């Protein structure tokens, strides 16, 4: 099956007092209707990856490599990228307030997107908006449409932001930490909503998050990023139960689990500071299994039975070294 989104050798550089390479040669594909999660900690480059794919980098950022959406190259073609935003790829961010205008009613904002996406009359755009509010499970859409963003709770606002992203019926939804700002009791409902909307609308999902529980709930496939690189990529079930990269294994072990007591497992040290330069493997300073060649040679992302891993000494399937 041909990919809906395909990034090849994607690199993102920021210029400034210090040159920073946020994303360093990433390959990524999302198939139609597939749900891919990109997992990583702060500074791993996961958010910049999304922005670079849709031509939304900050002014001092430059993307190189190739990003194709439905076969069409987007990098270096701002008009192609602009055409894809909205109708091709919709966006949901962590902070829903940032996606909504504070001084206009919810209904107007949704209708405006519907009108710009397809030539609709004001009246049918408004009907579409109300239908979409119902679709994201907001009660009493008619009354809600007249309300302003600040009058809603955080969970409701995020549902409105999702509705806004879906008004143009994108084929792929980019969701950057969509539930990180929400309370855990509200989060489960929003995750359920995202899963159901993907099914109903035949939509693919690329979700970026640091939360492995969110990933387990939504993703078909997972790519783990560390210091600007994808270090492991595999089907969700395989990766979560049998991680092959020591970083993935460390990350999974670090998640505090209900009912466990005593020492928490951790990864020693801290993720590299953006802008740091590397010679060997980027995870080597924190890796429990490091050997001599790890500090000398940068491991390439290599194919394994169930996916890809970038490690000189990947863990075996039973978790040993």
């Amino acid at each position, binding site marked *: 099956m041909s990919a809906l989104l395909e990034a090849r050798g994607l690199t993102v550089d920021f210029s400034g007092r210090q040159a920073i390479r946020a994303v360093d040669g990433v390959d990524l594909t999302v198939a139609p209707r597939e749900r891919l999660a990109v997992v990583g900690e702060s500074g791993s480059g996961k958010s910049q990856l999304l922005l670079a794919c849709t031509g939304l980098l900050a002014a001092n950022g430059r993307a190189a490599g190739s990003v194709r959406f439905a076969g069409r190259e987007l990098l270096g073609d701002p008009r192609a990228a602009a055409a894809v935003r909205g109708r091709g790829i919709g966006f949901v961010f962590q902070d829903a307030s940032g996606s909504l205008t504070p001084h206009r009613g919810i209904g107007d904002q949704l209708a405006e997107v519907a009108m710009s996406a397809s030539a609709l009359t004001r009246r049918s755009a408004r009907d579409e908006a109300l239908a979409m509010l119902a679709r994201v499970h907001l009660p009493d859409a008619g009354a809600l449409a007249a309300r302003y963003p600040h009058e809603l709770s955080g969970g409701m606002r995020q549902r409105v932001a999702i509705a806004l992203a879906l008004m143009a019926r994108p084929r792929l939804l980019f969701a950057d930490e969509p539930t990180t700002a929400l309370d855990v009791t509200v989060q489960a409902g929003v995750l359920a909503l995202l899963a159901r909307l993907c099914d109903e609308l035949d939509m693919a999902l690329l979700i970026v998050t640091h939360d492995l529980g969110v990933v387990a709930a939504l993703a078909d496939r997972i790519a783990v990023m560390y210091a600007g690189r994808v270090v492991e990529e595999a089907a969700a079930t395989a990766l979560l139960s049998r991680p092959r990269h020591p970083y993935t294994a460390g990350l999974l072990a670090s998640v505090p689990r209900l009912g466990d007591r005593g020492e928490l497992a951790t990864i020693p040290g801290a*993720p590299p500071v953006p802008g740091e330069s590397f010679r060997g493997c980027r995870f080597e300073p924190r890796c429990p299994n490091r050997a001599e060649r790890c500090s000398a040679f940068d491991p390439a992302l290599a194919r394994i039975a169930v996916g890809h891993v970038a490690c000189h000494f990947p863990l075996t399937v039973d978790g040993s070294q």
Partner: protein
Amino acid sequence: MTALLDVRDATVTYPRPAAEGGPVMAVNGVSLTVEAGSIVGLVGESGCGKSSLGRAILGLVPLAAGEVRWRDRRIDKLPRASFRPLRRELQLVFQDPTASLDPRMTIAESVAEPLRALVPGLSAAGRDARVEATLGEVGIAGELASRFPHQLSGGQLQRACIARALAVDPAFLVCDEPVSALDVSVQGQIVNLLARIRRERGLGCLFISHNLAVVAHLADHILVMHRGRIVESGSCAEVLTAPRHPYTRTLLESVPEVDPVSARRLIAGRATGPDSAPSSRLTS
């Protein structure tokens, strides 16, 4: 034995115009005790009043009713100047270490500040020795101490904030979401550090967090707060295995496990509704 800290029927209100419903009762008649050497975990979601309670204990927001007793002495009505000596005993660690440290001071200078303010009798050499020892205790050694905040990672900064709280040798620590701003791989380092410090120093601690799993790792006793009230109180094992309040059960059931089968079962059960749980906020 009397408790180190004893809070009785504490109520905190914030003003709000009568047209919008009158004063907001952020904390509504909360009682709790903390013994020396024990960690009490306070769990709740945004707006439930947990931070207001923590701040009220430290005299940073006034109580509208109830009382706070420290070593069996009432401290909630103390004027500012009389509270000052107590700052050596009761210290606070916040969520965001970047915001808690002065960007123009080195880490060592920041840790020396409370000593300067609260232990004026200490000589400069004695102060330096105490700063170095405390930073060593939290794992910030040597040259790191002379760096500025922007040169350190989030985990290192939170260690520095803990060192600053410990420098004056307190008997009680309020930690308000101390690991929420940190990466998962680093969170555990701070949780383990706090566990060790409690063991070695015998501190009492109120550990406030929205993350039940983190609290459960550390706390002896757990309080669950919802809409300004404590709705459940019990040992860690009791609350996790036999929760009595429906809100506690919702909270326990809402955390997606890192396992596709159970995480998907969880969201399959939440497919309807606007938001399955009622808001934890009193104001909405």
